[in-house]
């Protein structure tokens, strides 16, 4: 690092670089998003084809029409499916981001990383608990809109600590969540769009912008 410098352009560049590096989590990899998207698509396929019987009957009417015992079995499998997707997608997100930080020779766990997680987790955990309550009650049809909306709010909240795309991904998820609430019979479709397709689209955009 040079100690003295007379070129104001280089000074400004150094200032900008330091401001970004000290306040933003720049290790987030686009591949994390692509991987999470494919996990969600796989999870949605399992839900649709294996648990919901290829959607022969529209899914929330189907669930409401089931008797008590079989409804709770279906709910149980859907919850296991969702939790499995969440765990695998999160592990993938960590894997690709830690790999990116190693490649760039930057520490992974820094102040911006802590800020990002703090701001992400509050709405995220709230939404998770709320969704769990909905599943245990008789309101499973609201789970898709609720998870989309709370996930979107988490991303908007955490977006200022990382790349700007995350903010817009958050807004997209919120809009999809509201549509999922309006077209309540098509919850799984909007869930697949939001958690599957949008993660892949934004992940590819971020990968091409920042990692090539």
């Amino acid at each position, binding site marked *: *690092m040079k100690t003295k410098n007379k070129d*104001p*352009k280089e000074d400004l560049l*150094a200032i900008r670089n*330091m401001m970004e590096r*000290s306040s933003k989590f720049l290790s987030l990899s686009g591949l994390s998003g692509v991987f999470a998207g494919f996990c969600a698509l796989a999870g949605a396929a399992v839900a649709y084809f294996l648990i919901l019987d290829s959607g022969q009957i529209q899914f929330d009417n189907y669930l409401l029409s089931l008797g008590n015992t079989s409804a709770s079995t279906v709910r149980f499998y859907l919850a296991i499916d969702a939790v499995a997707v969440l765990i695998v997608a999160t592990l993938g997100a960590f894997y690709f981001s830690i790999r990116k930080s190693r490649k760039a020779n930057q520490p992974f766990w820094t102040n911006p990383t802590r800020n990002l997680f703090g701001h992400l987790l509050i709405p995220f955990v709230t939404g998770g608990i709320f969704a769990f309550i909905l599943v245990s009650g008789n309101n499973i049809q609201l789970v898709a809109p609720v998870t989309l909306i709370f996930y979107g709010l988490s991303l908007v909240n955490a977006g200022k600590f990382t790349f700007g795309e995350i903010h817009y991904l958050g807004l997209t998820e919120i809009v999809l969540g509201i549509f999922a609430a309006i077209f309540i019979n098509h919850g799984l479709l909007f869930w697949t769009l939001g958690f599957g397709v949008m993660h892949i689209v934004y992940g590819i955009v971020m990968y091409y912008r920042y990692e090539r």
Partner: protein
Amino acid sequence: MKNPISNLQKVFESRIRLGIMSALMVNDFLDFNALKELLELTDGNLASHLKGLEQQEIIVVSKQFIERKPSTTYKATESGKELFRQHLNALEELINRN
């Protein structure tokens, strides 16, 4: 017209001090280790620059114990932030002139 160079702050001539201050402009406070990681400096080198900034009241230091471990955090003062903004504006004007 005033020469923008007169607004360049001597204290920010060093790239290291410029870096410390840039980081403290966008973070409420940072501890010693965070600054060390960001600037990739040795303890002694960083400490001497921090001392310099502290003496000119551009930053304030506070020491406390977090879980029984001593922790030193650094924060930019209001006047320090103002000086930094003046310095930034002067840099910008210099670029626009050339």
